[in-house]
């Protein structure tokens, strides 16, 4: 059997094998946490290299009875997941070194594989499996430190997640019943035109399942609690990775499978996007726990990204009336590309920000009884931990959409696509929200830079610093040299649209 045919999927295979290996080795060797970490990091780098090889694959490669597709879109998401995962692993090297760390890394790897599977799925079954693999691994990760908060977070995450899975599965079953197939292409081909209650229920149940991962209001309720309660690095994984998996799945299912229902999901996402960003930003204003602020900010960002769906719904199939650099680009493609860029940017910024909170928590948890993520711990961070503070500063500005950062580029393309497709009202809401979000980002910044330090200068653990600086470079790099990223996102977006 010629395995070279499967070369584009070696990454997933490698990580799966590695995850198993990590668990095995971990149980054989004592105190091998650090080694397992390095091993995982190496594996992820290798997987990243494999993905990078097919990053801009022009013709989709289909595997496993038309259930898995390797195309520009899947590789885009995989790259995002792998980068997030890599950053989390690097940061974890400063924290998870002892006993049981092997399980942690294995779970991280499994979660990553699950996400990658979702990114490639063109079949509901594969998609569900990938979805559950990622979910189950992260349920366990959320409870990993076994503190009270961890467990509460994991429990809420678990219950809410399971319910969402149930909704999704029920929706899938209805889709299957209506079309006779679980393949997205077949579902799209089957006529869903005669719209009925069942179609609506199926659609909304599927959306509910994805919206749970994306943390769109009102499917977001678990997110603040979980992001606050789970270990900080796991929160990074959830906010930056698992959340984006929701988008990956939604893009595939809605834009390919359910494109016939686009007027319905267009409306649903228009409402969800507007409500999500507004509520997310408003709720973030009053929080005193930095991770909770980041959680709400993450919800708000999901609201922005969801604009991508609205743009597609509004502009799908419209002939391109414009050209960018001589290349005809429909509004829908620009919208998806904007969403993808913001996904990439947000993944980086949020990973960085959560790693930053982990670093702060590591500074205070030993000495203080109080909540390690309380904003008062950030007072004078610029003097206590200058590198962390500076990176956090840039992430905050980037999240707020201040140029020249990845956050700005993403918002720029996304909001402009909304205007391009005539959704001025949504763009206005998004922009007002973007301004509102400054309230809490600036609050964190002013604590870090404008307040007197809450303690002495501390040494910053190397793992965190490396991860933070790498993220920082990426965030600024994308902001200053966005050209290749924009092109990449446009190419990935093209996969979802009829050629």
């Amino acid at each position, binding site marked *: 059997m010629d395995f070279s045919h499967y070369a584009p999927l070696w990454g997933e295979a490698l990580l799966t094998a590695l995850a198993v290996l990590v668990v095995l080795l971990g149980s054989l060797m004592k105190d091998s946490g650090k080694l397992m970490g390095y091993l995982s990091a190496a594996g992820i780098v290798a997987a990243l290299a494999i993905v990078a090889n097919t990053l801009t694959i022009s013709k989709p490669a289909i595997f496993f009875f038309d259930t898995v597709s390797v195309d520009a879109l899947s590789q885009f998401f995989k790259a995002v997941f792998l980068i997030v995962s890599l950053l989390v692993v690097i940061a974890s090297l400063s924290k998870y070194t002892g006993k049981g760390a092997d399980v942690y890394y294995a779970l991280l790897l499994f979660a990553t594989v699950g996400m990658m599977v979702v990114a490639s799925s063109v079949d509901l079954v594969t998609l569900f499996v990938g979805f559950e693999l990622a979910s189950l691994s992260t349920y366990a990760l959320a409870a990993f430190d076994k503190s009270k908060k961890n467990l509460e977070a994991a429990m*809420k995450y678990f219950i809410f997640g399971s319910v969402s899975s149930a909704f999704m599965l029920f929706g899938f079953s209805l889709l299957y019943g209506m079309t006779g197939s679980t393949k997205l292409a077949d579902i799209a081909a089957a006529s869903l035109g005669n*719209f009925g209650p069942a179609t609506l229920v199926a659609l*909304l*149940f599927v959306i509910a399942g994805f919206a749970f991962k994306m943390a769109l209001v009102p*499917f977001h309720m678990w997110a603040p*609690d979980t992001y606050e309660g789970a270990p900080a690095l796991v929160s990074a994984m959830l906010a930056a990775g698992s959340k984006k998996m929701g988008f990956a799945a939604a893009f595939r299912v809605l834009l390919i499978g359910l494109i016939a229902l686009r007027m319905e999901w267009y*409306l649903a996402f228009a*409402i969800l996007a507007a409500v999500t960003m507004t509520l997310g930003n408003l*709720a973030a*204003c009053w929080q005193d726990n930095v991770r909770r602020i980041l959680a709400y900010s993450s919800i708000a960002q999901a609201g922005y990204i969801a604009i991508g769906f609205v743009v597609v719904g509004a502009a799908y199939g419209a002939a391109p009336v414009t050209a960018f650099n001589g290349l005809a680009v429909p509004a829908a493609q620009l919208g998806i590309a904007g969403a993808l860029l913001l996904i990439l940017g947000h993944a980086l910024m949020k990973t960085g920000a959560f790693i930053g909170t982990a670093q702060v928590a590591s500074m205070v948890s030993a000495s203080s009884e109080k909540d390690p993520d309380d904003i008062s711990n950030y007072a004078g961070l610029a003097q206590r931990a200058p590198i962390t503070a500076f990176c956090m500063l840039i992430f905050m500005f980037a999240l707020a959409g201040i140029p020249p950062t990845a956050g700005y580029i993403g918002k720029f393309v996304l909001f402009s696509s909304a205007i391009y497709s005539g959704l001025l009202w949504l763009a206005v809401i998004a922009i007002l929200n973007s301004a509102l979000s400054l309230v809490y980002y600036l609050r964190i910044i002013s604590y870090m830079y404008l307040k007197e330090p809450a303690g002495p200068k501390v040494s910053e653990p190397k793992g965190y610093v490396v991860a933070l600086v790498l993220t920082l470079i990426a965030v600024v790099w994308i902001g200053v040299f966005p050209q290749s990223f924009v092109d990449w996102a446009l190419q990935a977006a093209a996969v979802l649209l009829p050629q």
Partner: protein
Amino acid sequence: MYADYAYLIVGLPVLAFVLCLFVGWHLPRGGGFLTALATFGALVISLGIFSEIYPDKIIHQSMPWFANFNVGILIDPLALVMLLMVTFVVTLIHTYANGYMNGDPGAARYFAEAALFTASMLGLIYADNLLQLFIFWELVGLCSYLLIGFWYRKPSAAAAAKKAFLTTRVGDVLFLTGIILLYNNMASLNLALKPGEYLLQFPVIYAHLAEIPPAQLTLIALGLLGGAVGKSGQFPLHVWLPDAMEGPTTVSAMIHAATMVTAGVYLVARMFPLFYAAPHGLTAVAAVGAFTALFAATMGLTAFDIKRVLAFSTVSQLGFMMAGLGIGAAVGTMAVGVAMFHLIGHSFFKALLFLGAGSVIHAVNTNDMREMGGVGKYMKWTMYTMLIGSLSLAGFPFFTGFFSKDEIIVIAYEYGVLINFLPYIFLVLAAVLTAIYTFRMWFSVFTGKERSNYGKHESPMIMIGPLVILAVFAFGFGFAAQSDFYSYLDSNFEHYDVNFEELSVIGGHVLAGEHGATEAATGEHAPAAEGEHGAEEAHAEPWYIQILPIIIAIGGILTAGLFYWDKIKKFDPSQVTGDNDPIRKMLLKGYYQHEILTGWFAEGVVYGTALICNTIDIKLVDGWLNWLSAWVMGFAQNIRKVQSGVVQNYVTALVLGIVVLVVVISLAKEVGLA
């Protein structure tokens, strides 16, 4: 040859300014001799130019500046007499100041500011365009501000300086409006300007006045008059001038008597063709002038501060000059000569009086005439030179003031015959009061008994010298210069392309024409050109009009003597009216101007408006923003309560969310939205 150095007339004092400012501290007497020398240099150049261009040439130099504007020098008869007077008087005053300011720690600052003033004043005089004139106009205002506030540690001096600047600024607002209007009216003519010609140049303005709509001309004239009113302390903007006496006396003499305050009169004279052309323009000038002349004189009667008496007198005399110009409506360009003659004469005797007063104050160390008395015993030079000044001011026959002021009264009669007697009546009354208050001052300072224990010594020669020189001019200038002066100034507008006949029609001076005064109103034909002022020949006034001024002067002096000269004293001034007499009170309070202008207008209306704005700003303009942010934050506070922490509620929210979406989408389907 001297004309090539005309720029040095401003340049030398500027140099002195720079030197005094930076190195004056290290020089004896603050470098005052530099300022005096520089001004003297300017005088020499002015004299040289005089010798070159007298009697029938003018100097005009110009170079581009920025945008549509130029800088230039224009020396015509009008400017030349001013230049000569200013350089001469100011040289004397600077010399005097070398003595007067000796020992003051701020002497260098004084001389720097004085030099800057000199430069600005001279620049104002020979500016060839209105913008440049305005710039120097403002600069003299600045110097006035600086010098009034010279003793800035005195709160009253600082306040007076501010008041002076702000009050004249109100006038400048109007002046600026006038310039803006004039410029734009000139610009809208789309003139084909020759190289070197600019819209705001006086010759260009003169030449095109007739093309500007008359209504605009009136507005422009009123604007310029507003500026003149502010600078020359005419009613109602005269209030700053008495307060300005807070400055050193040399400043009062130089700026607030002899030179700067006459800038307003000079402006009206300079723009005389415009005022002439503007319907009602000269009427306004005459009205303002005549009223101020009388109004200020009444206040001069009651003031106790010797410098304030002189200040009111200055205001009053400036009113005479303004009125003289306004009377041009009846007598044409001749009015310029008459008014300028009084201006020059006045600057000699008023500078003399101020310097004399300064000399007295220098010795006595007070400004209050009630604490002086009998000073003449110790200060003979001062007393007699001031007597000459006083006689001149009062219009005693054959003194300068007699020729100049009485000429105004006489032509005011002319005006009365032709147009309206009110100015004449006002001016006659003012003249009576002038004689009275002048000698009230002189008698109460120099005669009688010492009313307090003051320093009893004569001032140094460096101060007496200028007094004597000024006294000579205060006595003899009028007699010596009058005929040539009139003819020279009457020729002023002949150098330009001005058609007074045409302007007369625009200005509505038909009245004058009906009475046969058209000739007087048109420059070329004015009999004045023949060497004697024309109205007299054209209309021989009745003899009593000619004699009246003499009677006024002598009568006024005698009246003052009856009250204040111990030798012939018949009445006690304090017995004439009771202390509570409302008129007396009103006069003492200066017609309650301070209460009205500072109290009601500045502090009430202007500052009140500012406070209202402030409230609006806080409550409304910023308030809505704070309200909005408070509202959003309150809303956010409520929003976050949704997150109850109870997992069952979360599931409920999820279900509700789906239900809402179902309902919305179904409804949208129903109405065909989706």
